[in-house]
């Protein structure tokens, strides 16, 4: 089964990202293929490397980066949603005249077309959020 995931909530307010992570990890470990993980709405906040949770809590952002490295996952942040919420890679920061970037390893910024493509190319598109 080839699936994709959409996450539409931020990392520490809502369980959507935790559940999506567990789902994705379990599916990959069971031999399924993940075409793409797409972050939309406040979900783009899952891609900031400046997140610093207390050390006795899970690190939602690092977990995604590690899963991406282990399975060559495509983690995509919606560019319009990311711009609204202050998430930028080096190119985006430069283009918008910002003095810093904050995207976490393994993530990339792209357009909403990537979400539509995920829907077309995958057997299932599973969404996590309210």
């Amino acid at each position, binding site marked *: 089964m080839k699936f994709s995931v959409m996450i539409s909530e931020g990392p520490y307010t809502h369980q959507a990202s935790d559940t999506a992570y567990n789902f994705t990890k379990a599916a990959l470990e069971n031999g399924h293929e993940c075409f793409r993980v797409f972050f939309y*709405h406040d979900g783009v906040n899952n891609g900031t490397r400046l997140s610093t949770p207390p050390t006795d809590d899970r690190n939602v952002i690092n977990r995604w980066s590690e899963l991406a490295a282990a399975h060559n996952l495509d983690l995509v942040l919606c560019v*319009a949603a990311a711009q609204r919420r202050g998430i930028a890679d080096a190119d985006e920061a430069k283009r918008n005249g910002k003095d810093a970037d904050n995207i976490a390893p393994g993530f990339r910024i792209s357009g*909403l077309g990537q*979400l*539509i493509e995920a*829907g077309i190319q995958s057997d299932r*598109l599973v*969404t996590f959020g309210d």
Partner: protein
Amino acid sequence: MSETKKFLYVNRKAPYGTIYALESLEVVLIGAAFEQDVALAFLDDGVYQLTKGQATDEVGMKNFSPTYRALGDYDVNKIYVEQESLDARGLSLDDLQALTYEDEDDDYAEKDSIKVVSAAELAKIMEQSDVILSF
């Protein structure tokens, strides 16, 4: 990408107060370029997204409701509104803005895009969709 899938965008939230409705509309407009079979469903508080006469000055948010009228130009003309959700909110089709499209198979006659359906009918539409994006 030659494959055509049935995309259904499900809108369940009020237009203002959260950003979901606005960012859903952005997906629909981008998605229209992909030449898929597209339909929209409005239920729960999502039916408020289509009400006419929206005035947002007091809440300081952009009134994006006129954008829905552009959907017909994007060949997005299957818009389902759930009857039960309208009833529960004391609304009827007359409270919604008219959304139309030009039917190229019928000498470009202007037709209504909105169809009011029951929850049971909407369930069938969902069942027949390949990709459901819920906002």
